[in-house]
């Protein structure tokens, strides 16, 4: 894949990833440019046979976003994360794993699935989920732990 192809294939995905977190459209554009500047600079040293282009671009986008939040001293759920050059999660960040996660989630009862998605995708706190889903906080924690245990089983 050439740099141009990478840009064509991932430009929208990068913006889709960045845009919801950034209030100022101009900042989002700047970040988008920063991501692809880094992609361009590192492209010659990136070994496409050893790692997924998707994961590589995602990692650059994520780290760029973390750096942006730190520079602006704005807290975000990413703000506390460490920037890593070699992403420790690279081996699992792919379509196959996402499909496996979807398959595992499909096996969960609706209530557990909603709780997992609300907590891990929408970053809602369990206390808030408990209120919205009309359960006690202690019960919500139980349901959460139960759902996690099942996901661990389904995904091993």
């Amino acid at each position: 894949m050439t740099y141009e192809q990478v840009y064509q294939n991932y430009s929208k995905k990068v913006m889709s990833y960045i845009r919801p977190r950034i209030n100022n459209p101009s900042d989002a554009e700047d970040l988008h440019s920063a991501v692809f500047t880094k992609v361009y600079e590192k492209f010659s040293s990136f070994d496409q046979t050893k790692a997924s282009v998707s994961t590589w671009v995602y990692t650059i986008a994520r780290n760029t976003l973390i750096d942006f939040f730190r520079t602006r001293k704005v807290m975000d759920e990413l703000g506390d994360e460490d920037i890593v050059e070699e992403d420790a999660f690279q081996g699992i960040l792919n379509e196959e794993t996402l499909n496996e996660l979807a398959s595992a989630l499909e096996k969960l009862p609706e209530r557990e699935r909603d709780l997992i998605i609300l907590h891990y995708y929408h970053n809602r706190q369990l206390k808030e989920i408990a209120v919205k889903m009309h359960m006690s906080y202690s019960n919500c924690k139980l349901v959460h732990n139960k759902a996690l245990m099942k996901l661990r089983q389904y995904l091993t």
Partner: protein
Amino acid sequence: MTEKVLKRLFDYQRFARNQRLGALIDETSSRQVSSLSDSELSYVNAAGVPEMMNLRPKGSVDREDPWNQT
């Protein structure tokens, strides 16, 4: 499958927009939106369509969240 791994997978989903997983996220959004009052109901943001969110303090409003559509 640790919580950290799960969180990272869902974060990657925000980038990769896997259709199957996105459909489940949309279903959850629809279910949760239906539990809101008429005044709180707005559009549901389907997975794959980015919407503007404010720069926000940790734990505050997430515009992609179905409970915070205004």
